[in-house]
């Protein structure tokens, strides 16, 4: 279980997160929706300590941390329990596909080279890239790169995988292959928090939807409730705007 309590974060005077509370059940798939600038990506990055909230606590499994008093060891500990899939993939450019996945296993989790290799190959096969082990990131399409990013996160066996708009940098025809992979691993019971604009995906895959706006959680609940009968005016407006864009495809 992951529990965020009272997370607040400001950049200078601008408050991007205001006392956020969020609980994610083990094995849950949570989708965070919201207009750009609503703070959803910042919230995600706080979980991986890529941003330092000004205030708040986090619990992941048996580990808990108060952001105000975190030391280096705590930060390191927190990062080891979460893994991130980035919008722009952020694969290690100077390493091959296989090495990208092995890197964290060997350096951080102290796997033997053999064990790291077989686990990495297994993960890469899961995302359908078993044939690209020796390629460098620059030789892959965006969709392939993002699938490597997913394999890299998956291999670390984290308590939660954080997806930061994993498909928004992709060409439209490549979105599907990445969503398919995420769908597949969601079914395996891995806890996931996904920031996305893909409404169809959010509705199909998630079991909890959070709608954020201006740094606060406006509304959250089961996907059928949020999409079917939103209570808050802001949520309605947002969904109306978003869904009208692809209404014809329903």
């Amino acid at each position: 279980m992951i529990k965020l309590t009272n997370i607040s974060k400001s950049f200078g005077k601008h408050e991007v997160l205001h006392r956020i509370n969020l609980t994610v059940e083990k094995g849950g798939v949570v989708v965070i929706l919201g207009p750009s600038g609503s703070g959803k990506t910042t919230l995600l990055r706080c979980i991986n300590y890529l941003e330092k909230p000004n205030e708040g606590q986090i619990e992941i499994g048996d580990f808990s941390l108060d952001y105000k008093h975190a030391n280096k060891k705590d930060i390191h500990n927190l990062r080891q329990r979460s893994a991130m899939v980035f919008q722009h993939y952020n694969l290690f450019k100077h390493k091959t596909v296989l090495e990208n996945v092995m890197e964290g296993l060997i350096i951080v989790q102290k796997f033997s080279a053999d064990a790291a290799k077989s686990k990495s190959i297994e993960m890469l096969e899961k995302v359908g890239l078993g044939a690209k082990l020796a390629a460098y990131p620059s030789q892959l399409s965006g969709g392939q790169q993002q699938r490597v990013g997913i394999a890299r996160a998956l291999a670390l066996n984290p308590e939660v995988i954080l997806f930061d708009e994993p498909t928004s940098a992709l060409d439209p025809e490549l979105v599907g292959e990445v969503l398919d992979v995420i769908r597949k691993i969601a079914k395996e019971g891995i806890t996931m928090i996904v920031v996305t604009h893909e409404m169809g995906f959010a509705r199909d895959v998630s079991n909890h939807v959070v709608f954020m706006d201006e740094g606060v959680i406006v509304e959250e609940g089961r996907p059928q409730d949020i999409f079917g009968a939103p209570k808050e005016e802001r949520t309605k407006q947002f969904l109306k705007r978003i869904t009208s864009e692809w209404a014809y495809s329903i």
Partner: protein
Amino acid sequence: MKIDPLFILTALLSLIKALPTTLIITVVSVSIGLILGSTVALIRIYRIPVLHRIAAAYVMFIRGTPMLMHLLLIYFGLPMLIDGISGTWGLPFHSNQIPLIGFVLISFSLTAGAYMSEVVRAGILAVNRGQIEAAYSVGMTTAQALRRIVLPQALSVCLPNLSNSLIGMLHASTLAFTVSVVDINAQAQIVAATNWKFLESYIAAALLFWGMTVLIERATSRLEKRINNYNRGGVA
């Protein structure tokens, strides 16, 4: 025009004797300079309190003054400092125990350190921020992220500049003659003066340096190709 082509060859053979001195000066100052430069670059990037101001002043001073000054300041200043300290504390160490080449190595390393810190700094800043975030996200510490992810990529970015620094230090090693260290240049002066064939001696010295420079350039471009093979796909 009086020129004795055969003597160029004779001079060349005689200059080879001084080649090891030139190479030692170059390799030692570049190696220490790289370590010093990387340290200074990291201190400045991470804005370590107090130290980053000292580092900035050091780089600014070295870059703002001729290398000859660094050598002469060390050559005349360091003995005063050492003997002063030894005298006050009654230590048995005396500056005349330092070999002449020691002054050259110390001063050139300081020079190389400042110039290379700029090269390394530019290289590190050129590495995309996402790379270090990805390293953090797989659970690496800052030290691991720097060593495994940022520095290898920075190296490939700054390789051409590092090679220029190496060539610069190779050429600059000719200054060593001012403190009576016999490098290729000093040896050329000796050969020239004893045989009264100045032009030929310096042609020989020039050929030697030219050859070494071309060699370094070739090696660099080859290394560049190898290191950059992950950029082949062209997708950024």
